[in-house]
Each structure stands twice: as C-alpha cells, then as structure tokens.
C-alpha cells in the first residue's frame, strides 16, 4: 500500500471522495466507528475550506507508525489566498458565528494533533494527526 495518497479538491464532489478515502484508511488501520466518523468530519471540514476559499488544493493521507503506535495523518494543501490572522480563525465562535460549521477549532477538537501554516497570498497547509488508541 502506498504510504501517502492524495485527493485533488476542485469540486464539491471531491469532498465526498476525500471523506470516503479517509474513512476507508481509518477503518483499515483499526479505528472504531466513532473515530472513523470524527476523521471523516475533520477531512470534510478541511476539504470544504479548500473548495470554498482556495478554489483548489489537495488532501493527502498518510498512515503513520511511531513508537509502536498507529495513526492517520491528514494534510490539507492549497495555494489560495492564505489566512491573514490565524489566531483569529482559531478562536472559538469566530467562524461558527458565521454559520460555517465546525471551523478550524472544530477540526482541532476532532483530532489529536493539529498544525497550521499559512502565508497571505501563498496558501495554507494544515496537518492533523489521529492516533489509534491501544486497547487496554
């Protein structure tokens, strides 16, 4: 299996493709139903941001194994307008008040690790990571 795999986001339909692929990967690794749904929702939110604000970009998946722990990494890349004030979009209530859904703080809540880099006029890269919890 190819360790990384990307979906190009250009149309709304591509969001569905990204969700599907992400969910399949999550299931293969061994995530339960709830975490599969959380991962799909996080991917959906990232892909929608690309579709709505950047026009085009891609969502890449990577199955990670680190210190005996398995996880799914998702990377969202676009060359859109970028985010001027990252602190502001990461504030609770900022994007949701405009009815845009969970927003980036929501994505952050759905995953275990979250990192964002953005340059105005150059684009945005967001990396998220969800770890598979070991059964006790």
């Amino acid at each position, binding site marked *: 299996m190819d360790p990384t795999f990307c979906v190009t986001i250009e149309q709304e339909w591509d969001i569905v493709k990204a969700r599907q692929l992400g969910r399949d990967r999550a299931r293969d690794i061994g995530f339960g*139903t*709830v975490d599969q*749904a959380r991962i799909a*929702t996080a991917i959906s939110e990232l892909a929608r941001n690309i579709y709505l604000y950047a026009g085009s970009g891609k969502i890449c998946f990577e199955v990670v194994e680190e210190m005996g722990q398995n996880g799914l990494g998702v990377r969202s890349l676009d060359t859109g307008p970028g985010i001027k004030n990252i602190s502001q979009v990461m504030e609770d209530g900022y994007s949701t008040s405009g009815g845009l859904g*969970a927003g980036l703080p*929501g994505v952050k*809540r*759905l995953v275990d690790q979250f990192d964002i880099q953005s340059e105005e006029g150059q684009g945005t890269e967001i990396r998220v990571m969800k770890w598979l919890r070991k059964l006790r």
Partner: protein
Amino acid sequence: MATIDTDIRHYRQLLKHYIEIRDEESLYGAEQISKAFIKNNVPPEEIINLHIQSLSELYPDIPEHFQHSMNFLLEIMISYGVAHQENHSLREQQSELMSEIAVASNMQDTLLTTTKPDVAGLDIGVVSVPAHQMSGDYYHFLTGEDDSFGIAVADVIGKGIPAALCMSMIKYSMDSLPKANVSPKTILKNLNRVVERNVDASMFITMFYAQYLPSESKICYASAGHEPGFHYHAETETFEEMKTKGLVLGVSPDVDYWEYERTIQKGDMVILLTDGVTECRQGDRFIETEEVLEVIAQYADLPAQEMVNKAYKHFERMQDFQLRDDFTLIVLRKEV
C-alpha cells in the same frame, strides 16, 4: 475514567431493564446518567456509540438496516459533539471574563469614591447606580478652602466598560486640577482639553459643574452639554430648569464655557442628574421630565438622601428593575 466505566455498565443494565419493563424508575436512572455524562463532558456521538454497542450485546440479532440507521445517527451527532465542546469552552471563557469585570468594577468603586461634604445648613442626597457592572456616570465632590465646595456630574455617552475607562480619565484629570477655588467654566475648559487629546472622536462626555458658596448662598455653574439641572423654589413650590449652553467635552480643542449663577433661598433645592434619570423608559415610552420632577416633589418633605433613594426605587420599579442606562441623581437642599 472509573466513573465513566461504571456509567457505561449502568447504561446497559438500565436500557435492558427499560426495554423489558418500561418503568419510570429506569427513566429516572437515565436522567441521572445523562447528568453524569454532561458532567464528564461525554460527547453525544459517544453516547450513540454506547447505545449501539449495548443494543448489539443485548440483542445480537438486531436487523442490519437498524444497525445502519444507528450508524447514520452517530454520524449526525459528530458536529453536535464539536459544537457542544465549543459551547463548553466558550462558557468557561465567559466566566473568566465575568470575574475580570467584577474585579474591574471593584477597582472603579474604589477609584470613584467621594465623600459628601458636611456643610452646616445644607442637606445633600446622592444616588448613582450603573446599568451594568461598570458605570459611565461620574460624580465627585471637591471641597474648597472655605466652606465652599464643588460638585461634578459627568456622563460618558455609552455605557459599560468603554464608558468606565473614559470615566477613570476624568477622575485623574479632576485630581490634577489646582486645589484652589477654580471657577466652573475654567474647570470645564481644562477638562475639555484633556478629553479632546485623549479620547477617540466617537466618544463624548457631558459634564455639569456647580460650585456652592455658602457665605453668599450662591451657586455658580457651567455645563458641557449635560442634562440641565433644576432649581426648586420653596416659596412657589415650582421647579425651574437651570438653562445652560456649552459644548460637550472632547469635540474641539479650545472651548470657552459660559458660567451662570443663582441665589438659593431657604428650603430651595438644586437637582443634578444624568440622562439615565430623564431617559427612563416605561415600556417603549420615554418618560417626560415633568414626571421626574413630580416624583421628586412627591418626596420633597423627606431628608435629601431618603428622597433620592425613594426616587431611584420608583424609577427602578417603573423599568422592571432593569436599568437601561447609568442613573445618577443628586439633590442639595438649603435648610436654613
């Protein structure tokens, strides 16, 4: 985690019991579990998942389409879970803000402390209540070298924290004025300069400054666009508006103010207020100034402090105990 595990086991038992007997007791148990879940911040999708698992353990032959429908429901709940967490953290932020404001409000109270001057033959009553936690109204008594004293009443247009910040500035500028008996018009002229330099153009402050000279039974006053005061003539039992002209503070750097004076007779009253008093509302209707004066006249026989307290209670009740603006009312009565 231990309590959550117990709750999970408990959930399964209760669910089973309820499906078999359908009694109120199980539902009461459900209510308790629900509260425990909220307390432990368990997101809704976890509860649906718990339900799915409990069902499939209790009834292994559940039809497949039903299981799919439950998974669909779980999916629906994901965003609710995120929103729930967001609300939770917003609530925490809110309570942090509230306690910060409470501290600021205490600081403001300390900052704006002023003492009513004790002048023989003069009865003074003051009431000043903010609409929210912090006040945009300001009043201050300044004692002069002889028995004379000054009263400043100011109102920042707007209320809440921005108004309160502005108010502190007025307080500092008043403190920095020379202690000698400065005339009302000079005080306003100086304050205007400070406000003009330090406050955003969209903010206005109105102020009324009166100086009482007991030896001459005279009151000198000037106003910077403030609500006019009233002079109650004991002899005729009538109120007279203390008409003034003068620009609000902070509009233009160099403003001269007019100064007025009048003689106060025995039993006369001087009433100073902010627009929180004159713009009291009964339902959608603003009250008329006459109504304010009627209420004051109604309690005219009482000592000044009781009088303003009663008047405040009257308007508080009229507005359903929800002040829309900061409320300040000061009454001076010459007794001899």
